[in-house]
């Protein structure tokens, strides 16, 4: 009697079981992610520097208005936006080309796909350091020759305010293009082959097939890659910190570097939190814009 009752799979028992399965993770995320985020929002409304605890007071949105008026933060925002736009565009274009090259199934391509994973797995701090060493103007294997051929400024590509940001973009593109290529490759391989065959029989050439059939069907994958890369590039820290630490003269000082500097090195918790929450708002805004644009594009392609 007792046993059969236990085994009874009533909907209520079922939902209780599922609730118990989900609860630990939800609780963990609530305590260790949601609670800190909410506290961060709280901190951002206070003048709060751990080095000057006697000055703590509620200042409402002053940290936000200060951040938006701060020339360093404005500069960081512009640098971050240029960095994000440049990196994501280059990664999407190059990644798509790579995916197309890797698309035909062969032994050679399978080996190449595997080796393509290497940059993704390397520790980002190491990536930053490798390029810092290679591009060094006095002993770097690439940097020395570039400077001597007058192709780079005498302080090296990472030492000049004009070239440091584009160079860091190249480093980010080097690290993450393979990821974009692998995700797009998986999407290419999932395309229904009958549609592609039909298009080939109908005499559609390569370019038209790509533009009219492959690209529209790839939209969901492109959207995911775009959101993933935009949100990740916008908060880049490790590679830039290791390669230039934001310099020279703040030319590569991304928002994430500013936020960490204010919050965790200067202990200006209120101001640092405000900057990071502004960053989160930017990320949410960009993700929403991408989502809406792609949904509209998707609808247009499917109707016509």
């Amino acid at each position, binding site marked *: 009697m007792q046993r059969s009752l236990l085994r009874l799979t009533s909907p209520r028992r079922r939902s209780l079981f599922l609730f118990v399965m989900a609860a630990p993770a939800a609780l963990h995320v609530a305590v260790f*992610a949601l609670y800190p985020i909410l506290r961060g929002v709280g901190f951002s409304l206070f003048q709060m520097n751990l080095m000057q605890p006697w000055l703590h007071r509620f200042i409402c949105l002053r940290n936000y208005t200060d951040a938006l008026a701060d020339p360093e933060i404005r500069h960081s925002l512009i640098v971050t936006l240029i960095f994000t736009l440049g990196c994501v565009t280059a990664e999407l274009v190059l990644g798509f080309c790579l995916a197309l090259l890797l698309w035909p199934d062969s032994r050679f391509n399978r080996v190449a796909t595997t080796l393509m994973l*290497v*940059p993704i797995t390397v*520790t980002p701090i190491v990536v930053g*350091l490798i390029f810092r060493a290679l591009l060094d103007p*006095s002993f770097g294997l690439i940097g020395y020759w570039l400077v001597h051929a007058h192709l780079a400024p005498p302080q090296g590509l990472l030492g000049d305010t004009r070239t440091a940001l584009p160079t860091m973009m190249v480093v980010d593109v080097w690290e993450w293009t393979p990821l974009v290529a692998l995700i797009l490759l998986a999407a290419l391989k999932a395309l229904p082959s009958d549609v592609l065959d039909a298009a080939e029989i109908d005499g559609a050439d390569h370019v038209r097939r790509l533009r009219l059939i492959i690209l529209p069907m790839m939209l969901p994958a492109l959207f995911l890659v775009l959101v993933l890369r935009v949100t990740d590039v916008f908060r880049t*820290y490790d590679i830039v910190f290791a390669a230039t630490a934001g310099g020279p003269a703040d030319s590569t000082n991304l928002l994430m570097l500013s936020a960490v500097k204010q919050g965790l090195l200067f202990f200006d918790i209120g101001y640092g939190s405000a900057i990071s929450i502004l*960053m989160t708002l930017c990320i949410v805004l960009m993700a929403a814009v991408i989502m809406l644009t792609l949904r509209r594009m998707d609808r247009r392609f499917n109707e016509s």
Partner: protein
Amino acid sequence: MSRRTKGSALLMQRSLLVMALLVFLAPILWLIMTAYEPSRAIQSVPPTLRFTPSLANFASIASNFDLPRLTLSSMVISAGSTMLSLLLGIPCGYALARTRMRSAILLAYAFLAIRGVPTVVTLIPFYLFMRQLHLLGSWWAVILMNATLSTAFVAWMMYTAFRAIPREVEDAAIVDGCSAFGAFWRVALPLARTSVAAAALLCMMFAWNDYLNPAFLTRAETRPLSVALLTAFGGNTTSGWGTLGAMAHLSTIPIVLAGLLLNRYLTAGLTRGIH
């Protein structure tokens, strides 16, 4: 298309791929090489690739760093973070995939959104939180921090994986006398093992390679390799590149090899994890 144009197209495609691979692999190979290069050779002007190999850099890191301790820290942090994330994330993903509640999808999206928040937002309050709990500087602080990000990610990934498994398979097991947990443990989980492997590998990679969280949450005795790598230089640019190469043998090559060996799962994880 004639056979000849097809052949030249193939040649073109392969040579482009070889060039791309050279660009992607050469910097890593250079790094590995510097480890065997005496520091004077690294700074030779003009720089060359010719040198007499030596193991001096390895001797130097062994005497300057407590390597077993650093490696242990890295291992404890990545294994702990991975286990905790899987333990919390897998059952949660299962529950989200099986519930009939409409709002479950919202929770799944909330988990995904947590992944999008920049680390620094949580890091500042988390740092103070850990200080209050007297966990600052311990391995636990980093493990708990990594697990928040990874649990959300694992839950999302397993949610999509379990949704792809038809319910009927489990219903049959329940009719045969399996408990609700048994249906999950003995039927659904083995069917989703590829995704579990992918999730585990990605959690491990993230925890092993992460710099920012352990840099602020650990102290000298609990520091992992990724943090030691940078402090090894201390901004000194004229020496220490050979030491970096030697350190990278410990810190970077294991995770790269793991990625290469388990690449099947890694690609599955990278592509499914975001769908």
